[in-house]
């Protein structure tokens, strides 16, 4: 099968995890890894695996634009704003794994179809990727008046970026719950738990639905169908209990175990971000290849 070429910007933990995931893809061909520290483990590994590596950031890639059509940006929000402009100018499709949110929010099982031709999309937050599918699954059965999510992650999987910008997490996730999940009002809470051995990412979704009767069976079916869809790209995504109903309130407990590619298995929060971005890129690639074969 023909593949679409991709590059990774950023050679940290996320970039390295992407490297492993992309190595398995049937539609994407990783060609290039771009970093700024030639001594970084990510770049060394990329070189050893035979990928083209650049060590002075995006500049060298801009001189070799044919190396990739799709670029994953796993740097920082600040750097992404700069990268986004430059990559747009040379016509690349970009997946933004930073909180920069230059492009529209995408949660693959909810709204990927609307953004198949986007030049830049943002993956919201890990909590958003884990919970917005559930909010949407409830919403498509019955209007959600209010949805609230609580993401609990192991302290070990919360990097300095997350810690320094913790408000960004709650605010961006809440926005995603409303815009993509469809809830009239959204709220997000994040808790860091330092327990050893580290806990697997957990997410709780509370939703208040409108109406005199709650379509319990239909909502549960819809949630379970959605869980399967997310599992197609995050196999460790699962319900901890069947949804619990209490009046108009639906409560859903989730657990996200990572694939353990490069990141630890407990870091389901990081894994769901890299996995979702690969999923979006694969959809883009299929779309591109379909377009080419028609024309």
């Amino acid at each position, binding site marked *: 099968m023909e593949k679409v070429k991709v590059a990774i910007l950023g050679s940290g933990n996320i970039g390295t995890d992407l490297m492993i995931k992309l190595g398995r893809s049937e539609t994407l061909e990783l060609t290039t890894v771009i970093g700024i520290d030639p001594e970084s483990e990510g770049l060394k590994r990329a070189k050893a695996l035979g990928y083209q590596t650049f060590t002075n950031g995006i500049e060298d890639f801009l001189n070799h634009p044919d190396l990739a059509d799709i670029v994953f940006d796993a740097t920082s929000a600040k750097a992404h704003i700069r990268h986004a402009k430059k990559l747009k100018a040379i016509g690349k499709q970009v997946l933004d794994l930073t909180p920069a949110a230059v492009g529209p929010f995408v949660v693959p099982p909810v709204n990927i179809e609307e953004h198949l031709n986007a030049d830049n999309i943002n993956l919201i937050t890990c909590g958003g990727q884990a919970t917005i599918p559930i909010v949407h699954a409830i919403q498509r059965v019955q209007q959600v008046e*209010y949805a609230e999510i*609580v993401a*609990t992650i192991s302290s070990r999987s919360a990097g300095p970026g997350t810690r320094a910008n913790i*408000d960004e997490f709650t*605010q961006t996730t809440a926005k995603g719950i409303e815009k993509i999940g469809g809830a009239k009002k959204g709220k997000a809470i994040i808790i*860091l738990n*330092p327990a050893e051995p580290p806990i697997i990412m957990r997410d709780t979704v*509370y939703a208040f639905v409108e109406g005199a009767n709650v379509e319990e069976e239909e909502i549960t079916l819809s949630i379970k169908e959605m869980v399967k869809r997310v599992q197609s790209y995050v196999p460790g995504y699962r319900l901890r209990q069947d949804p619990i109903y209490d009046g108009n309130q639906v409560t859903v*407990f989730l657990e996200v175990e990572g694939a353990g590619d490069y990141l630890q298995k407990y870091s389901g929060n990081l894994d769901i971000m890299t996995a979702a971005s690969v999923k979006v890129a694969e959809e883009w690639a299929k779309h591109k290849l379909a377009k080419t074969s028609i024309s």
Partner: protein
Amino acid sequence: MENKRDVRITEVALRDGSHAIAHQFTIEHVTNIAKALDQANVPYIEVSHGDGLGGSSLQYGLSLTNEMELIEAAASVVTNAKIAVLLLPGIGTMNELKQAAKLGAKMARVATHVTEADVAPQHIALAKELGMETVGFLMMSHMVPPNKLVEQAKLMESYGADTVYVVDSAGALLPEEVRERIRALKEELTINVGFHGHNNLSLAMANTLIAIEEGATRIDGSIRCLGAGAGNTQTEVLVAVLDKLGIKTGIDIYKMMDIAEDLVAPILEKPQEITKDGLVLGYAGVYSSFLLHAQRAAKKFGIDSRDILLELGKRKVVGGQEDMIVDVAADIAKSKAHAQV
């Protein structure tokens, strides 16, 4: 009077007490109590949802009255007292802190789990920028040894906190454990050290006295024990005890007794006492505000609330993880059903 205080007390009933009454404070409650506390010369009065700004949620319980209205009401009736607000990064944000400051809050208490101080620098910096007195509040301090506590307290100090608190959120610390923690902080820090106790093991008063003996100068109390779990160090009693010890708080004992009796007692559905669940909180080292949630979950799933709390302690659940209560309760109910088959 201001400059004659050896220990500065923060009255937390209008925040911590929110847990005990399922976040049902009204403007009338807050106005009357804050006004009377100010007249009794209490220097700091904390007002917020029990889980801090932005805490009104399905996870923690919805507030009957918007906390911003409560903060505004409290700020409008005090003359000398400063209104304090609690903020847990991850739950509340800088937006709410700005709003509270605008409404008259003068002290920001930024709370993190005892190992996670590094989520707080932005919030502390903002509080300073807003001209607020700033406290770093290290919750669940019983979960780490003193050296770790010192490391995290130093982070709070480096972010600009004026005070750092040892917070015994689970009411689990024993007196000697309080002593070694406060002593370690006094040795290593230049800023004020504070102590916030819970009375789950009936040790809040003893622990508070030891904290003061070791040099803590900022102390939390809840009048009539109106706080999470079995409540905190009972403020009016503490003021009397400190007076007998010759330690000046500047607070009027008689007025405090009246507030406790006439204004606070009527709010409580039943008097605060150490119930079996409260005791288990302290015994298992579980966050005090889990109390009512665990009782509700126990009822829903037909199991013993103590089993839920003990299991939560085993799983090393931290403050804010209220969603674990129902999850654990469902697990226990399932395994019980299995056992019966």
